[in-house]
């Protein structure tokens, strides 16, 4: 019991620390904030991502073992007759142990993949280990009567295997789509600027599809860097008639900027930029987690045990 108390206190201290000290930020920020020596120590100890350190996992394992011992002792007490409060206590501890074991399963065997699916295009999921390809048929946003506040985001998708449609359905926030043991969640959305870039006079056009403001990956760049940004909000004015601003940073010389309308091309120095169109994408999360059922099952059992433990008279 003293050990459990100590473990709970350590977990409490770690959670307090992790909630008050920003986690998961770039290393430079910690070095700047805490200085070179303290910052390096901070990073070495994993305090920038404290909930994923081995030390934190170890506390969880120790707590699990302590609960196993406590449960065993309570089970022995039950031999001399079933008392509801002890049964409740056993349920509570067993539930929490199932929960913790399932968290381990989830961390070890669960996987989550984020995909930005462009509207009307198929993307291969085989590389991510999923037995299907994905096509986003349509992404839509529903608004309330004020026409400004978003009511719902919805993606209509098809899961494909070659030409065969395995499943077609729609998903929205709070309503994920389930296929076999995989759940697909609506996470985000946005626009991709699509076009081509080539070096004049005889360079081969290379297609690009980037988020507004991103650098364009370009194999024929010869050290030049190209950035494309959409000039208006397509959710407000629509995707047609949009203009994109570009910035070309040559390997040598001054940077150049310009504007190009959708469906047109612009030439800057010896670089030709064609801005084809804007295409909507939907940010989808694919999740396969064999631990989730155990996590919630364990929590429900623990809750039932908690109620039984504290609502029945305690007699020794």
């Amino acid at each position, binding site marked *: *019991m*003293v050990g*459990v*108390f100590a473990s*709970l*206190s350590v*977990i*409490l201290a770690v*959670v*307090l620390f*992790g*909630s*008050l000290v920003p*986690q998961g930020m770039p290393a430079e920020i910690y070095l700047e904030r805490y200085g070179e020596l303290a910052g390096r120590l901070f990073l070495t100890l994993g305090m920038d991502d404290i*909930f994923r350190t081995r030390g934190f996992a170890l506390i969880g394992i120790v707590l699990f073992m302590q609960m196993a011992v406590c449960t065993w002792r309570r089970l022995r007490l039950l031999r001399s007759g079933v008392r509801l409060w002890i049964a409740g206590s056993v349920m509570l501890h067993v539930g929490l142990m199932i929960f913790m074991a399932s968290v381990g399963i989830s961390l070890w065997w669960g996987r*989550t993949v984020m995909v930005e699916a462009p509207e009307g295009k198929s993307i291969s999921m085989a590389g991510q280990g999923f037995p299907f390809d994905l096509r986003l048929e349509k992404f839509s946003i529903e608004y*309330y009567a*004020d026409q400004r*506040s*978003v*009511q*719902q*985001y919805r993606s209509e998708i098809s899961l494909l295997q070659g030409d065969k449609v395995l499943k077609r359905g729609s998903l*929205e*926030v*709070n*309503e*994920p789509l389930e296929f076999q043991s995989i*759940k697909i*969640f609506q*996470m985000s959305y946005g626009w991709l600027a699509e076009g081509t870039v080539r070096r004049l006079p005889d360079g081969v056009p290379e297609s690009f599809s980037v988020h507004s403001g991103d650098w364009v990956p370009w194999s024929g760049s010869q050290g030049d860097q190209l950035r494309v940004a959409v000039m208006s909000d397509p959710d407000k004015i629509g995707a047609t008639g949009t203009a994109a601003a570009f910035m070309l940073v040559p390997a040598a010389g001054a940077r150049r900027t310009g504007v190009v309308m959708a469906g047109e091309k612009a030439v800057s120095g010896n670089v030709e930029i064609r801005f084809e169109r804007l295409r909507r994408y939907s940010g989808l*999360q694919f*999740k396969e987690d064999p631990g*989730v059922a155990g*996590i*919630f099952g364990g*929590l*429900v059992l*623990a*809750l039932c045990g*908690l*109620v039984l433990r*504290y609502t029945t008279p305690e007699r020794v």
Partner: protein
Amino acid sequence: MREWETLLLMATFLAYAGATLLFSIRYWMISNRLVAAGIAATGMAYAFHSGLLLYRSLAAGRLPLSSLYEFTLVFAWATVLVFLFCSVRYRLLAAAPLVLAVTTILIGSASMMPRDIRPLMPALRSVWLQIHVLTGLLAYGALAVSAALALVYISGVEEKNAPEGAAGRGKTDWSLQYWRIPGRDDLEKYIHRLIVFGFIFLSLLIVTGAVWAEETWGRWWGWDPKEAWALVTWLIYLVYLHGRKRFGWQGQAAAWFSAVGFLAVIFTLFGVTYLLAGLHSYK
């Protein structure tokens, strides 16, 4: 129509403030009239408060659970509900000044928050919103009242002796029936019961939040500041429950845990919302 909301809010605030004052004076002055006036003011405040929530629900076309302003109002309402139950069931009216002071502060804070009615964002359009928030209200209401009783315990206040023979003088001393500061053992027992009740609903709050997060964000836990602080609060009360069992923490220890635990509740509600940005920052 928005003026009605402002009027109800002001009336609620003033009535709670008046009730707090009347019950506070009662600590120094034994008077049936003070208790009667305090009860009347509390009843009036609660009626205004309920009217305010009803008005807000009708205006928004949904339960008022989606912004910090709405949650603060409902949290205060649930706290008074738990307190009224305890007053009738355990005759704990003597804790009224503290509970009503907290309620008055909550209503006052709410009056400074944005009150515009916004449609529910997609993530909040779920039946889990009602379940999750209502479990939270019961948990926080019970923990607030336990903290008020804990402060009574820590302060060591004892009821002044009633005039000799007061209890036997029939209806003129009826207030002594409800206005009493229990013996320290009883007080500690009530604090513990309220913590247990609050802890069960706090656990339910965390579990329902996890189920909802799994449906909405595809992850049942993400160490978001609100989640982390809900866990901190839960761990504080869990340490207390274990300490009570193992080390016999009763009396002052229980009272201090109750008070510190409630500070964690307040920080989870307001501190995290304003100081630590995260997915739960619904202002």
